[in-house]
């Protein structure tokens, strides 16, 4: 995983550098330092340091620590976070928050269904009041024609 992460950074760094050299001029039309000046320095340095780091990663590839037993829970929480954002677009702010809390607490805290239900109702309402009513920030309305 560590090597894959370093490789991913290297790919992004190489792409960044190629754009910096290919699409951004080093000097402006007025002869001053142009938009490509700084990105070229950053890109080249990033590629060089990532390669250097990758060398160390490869050298110690057999000493990588095993995953903790909680990696699957982490993955589930990350997936739920992503689904929550999708829910925001579909259901709107308040309903998506309630649904997310209910599902998350059902997954993480199964032994207290009543507590979960109460938190899932009142915490989203509290956040709705703070952001939508007090701060007038406006929450996502959602695509579905729901009353809230």
């Amino acid at each position, binding site marked *: 995983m*560590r090597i894959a*992460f*370093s490789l991913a*950074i290297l790919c992004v*760094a190489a792409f*960044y550098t190629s*754009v910096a050299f290919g699409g*951004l*001029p080093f000097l*402006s*039309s007025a002869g*001053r*330092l*142009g*938009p490509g*000046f*700084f*990105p070229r320095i*950053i*890109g080249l*340095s*990033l590629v060089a*340091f*990532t390669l*250097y*780091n990758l060398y*160390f990663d490869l050298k110690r590839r057999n000493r990588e620590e095993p995953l*903790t037993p*909680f990696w699957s*829970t*982490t993955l589930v*929480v*990350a997936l*739920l*976070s*992503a689904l*929550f*954002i999708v829910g*925001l677009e579909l259901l709107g*702010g308040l309903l998506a*928050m309630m649904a*997310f*809390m209910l599902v*998350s*607490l059902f997954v*993480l*805290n199964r032994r207290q269904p009543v*507590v979960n239900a109460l*938190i899932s109702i009142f*915490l*989203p309402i509290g*956040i709705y009041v*703070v*952001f939508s009513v*007090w*701060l007038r*920030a*406006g*929450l*996502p309305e959602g695509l579905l024609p729901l009353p809230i």
Partner: protein
Amino acid sequence: MDIFDNLLLGLAVALQPINIVYLLIGTMVGMFVGIIPGFGPSAGLAILLPVTFGMEPTGAVMMLAAIYYGSMYGGTITSILLNTPGESATVASTFDGYPLAQQGRAGPALVMQAVASFIGGTIGVILITLLAPLFAQVARSFGPPEFFMLIMMGLLMLVVMIGENWRLGVISTLIGFALGTVGVDLETGSQRFTFGSAELIEGIDFIPIAIGLFGLGELYYSFYEGLHAKGSGGIIQYQKEKRFWPDLRDWIDTRFAMLRGSLLGFVIGVLPGAGATIASLMAYSVEKAASKTPERFGKGMMAGLAGPEAANNAASSGAMVPLLTLGIPGSGSTAVLLAAFLLWGLQPGPLLMAQNPEFAWGLIASMYLGNVALLAINIFAIPLFVLMIRLPYRILAPGVILICTIGTYAVHGSIIEVWLMFIAGLVGFLMKLYGFSPAATVLALVLGPMAEETLRQTLTISRGSAMIFIERGVSLTILLVMVAIVLAAAALRLSRTRARAAGSAPAVGS
């Protein structure tokens, strides 16, 4: 106007009822942020920044600053009662804080940490009051070369402090710089790395990245470490102890430790990149070295708790000096504070104290009041925070995800920024997992545009010659300091390697 008049002006601003309310909310929230393990002030500030948008700027920044220094107080409660530091700056407080609690002295330890934190924080604010105007005056003579070198020194310090994984720190910094180049180049008007997207023309906003890296990233990492599976069963029941207050012996034993910790912490806090964690660990070492009974450290010495506590609070005050007078943050937390300043159109730097005295001195005066409030809250509201410690992480965490997501959306009403925050969260988790530095990325993202602008201005002034950095006295001094930092770090590393080699080699004659 002299310092005293300025301070009175600041007090008049800070004592406005609405500002006092914001300050008290900030101190309480800071305490709460501090006691949640795996959730530092950077995360707390980033997540709560959007909540302050509807507020008046001075009150909002006072509240955010209170969250920042309040978290230093809060983190120690779990260090003492649970042997789990609420955040990295309170790691040193577990060394003697928890043994004290095990010996039935949790009450005196909790009171002593509150008093030490108050003394450290207050000495820190007194030093800000005295030194910040001088710093600002000196900084007025700085030009682009000096500012560029200062930015580089701050980032270098941060990378050096990472230790053996310094190359990961460099990569983290470069990623932040790269993110900072997205958007319109202000000097030529050209678009960079926007790929035709209208959303990227104004650049990558700081808030989704900070909330993602610090908030979501930390949260995923806490799940990965199994924090949700741990209960608070091991918490020490301080209510059952006979004595709650420290005795005379404790006050005598710690009087110099607090003073030493405060001064050391402030100096380290002023240095960009060093911060409260280093300050508290160094203060612990200093106390141990200064003690007549160093062998008792780690077994429940009150000075081993008071010194680091005074240091981490004084460091958080010290970190405000470069932020206010140079506009250069030295850590992830102060980078978020800088972003808050900029959001309200306040440009920290040499002219801030002259152009916005009500704001600058109001903030400083609020820190005096904030420390007093925190002392009272720490001593009398401990039962409330113990209740908070008992709140299981598995219930708390979904609420944090909710606030991160809604907070990010609230800034510009952009769902794309929410997705950006989510991606930054995943990347932040992987960065933390593999030893990268999300703080360096955020700091570089904030400072990147300034670094680029000052470098281009410098090279324009010098007609492309880098010799300008050597020809100007201040920039040369900063350069020499940077060289000294690199050499010192290399020497330290070499000596550690030698010591390890000597330790692993078979003893002669064995």
